[in-house]
């Protein structure tokens, strides 16, 4: 009986996940994705310089592809780091 209750509690906990973020580029149509806008793209990078996945950034698939492309272009031009280990301090 106790097991059943525990299972039930676990299921309920799993269901109560936080609300999914909406894509910021879909909500604000005027927002542009550009490899030159470093500050904007920097918000999608982790401390180590990794690109945040969709479940964290909240972007839709279309805009995530554009963001990834822009970050990679910015990295090539040394506007953003590939990894924090190589960053010039």
């Amino acid at each position, binding site marked *: 009986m106790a097991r059943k209750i525990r299972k039930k509690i676990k299921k309920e906990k799993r269901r109560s996940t936080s609300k999914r973020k909406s894509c910021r580029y879909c909500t604000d149509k005027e927002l542009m994705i550009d490899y030159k806008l470093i500050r904007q793209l920097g918000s999608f990078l982790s401390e180590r310089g990794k690109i945040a996945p969709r479940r964290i950034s909240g972007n839709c698939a279309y805009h995530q592809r554009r963001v990834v492309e822009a970050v990679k*272009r910015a*990295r090539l031009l040394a506007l953003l*780091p590939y990894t924090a280990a190589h960053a010039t301090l």
Partner: protein
Amino acid sequence: MNEYETIYIGRPDLAVGRIEKINEKIQKILKEGKADVIDCRDWGTRKLAYRIGPCTNGRYVYFNYTGDGHFITELERTLKYEEGVIRYLTVRLVDVDAVAKKKKRINQLEEGHDGFDERGSPPESGSASEGYKGEDNGQKD
């Protein structure tokens, strides 16, 4: 006709006037390729996000131009063999004409017709349908 952007990073320790010479070379290639230069900007010396060879700083120069891209191979070859240039990147921007066409098409679909009259002939050939005329009027408004 497409719009392009080229950015190159020059060495920060270049002699005075060297960057201007590289810019002149680029301008010449663009002129020969019949490209229209929209913007040419020197971003100045910036800190690089990571070390490239011995350089921790770099001088960024930005070009924005339109044209058919046949001269870009020549432009990139010039930048590749230029000793003062560390990195370069050329990007094709979204085709402006294509975007305008697509928007027009979407508007037509939203208004409940696809730009073709009842007989199935496109609006340009023969008499345009009423719906198409209406769409034109709507755009003027």
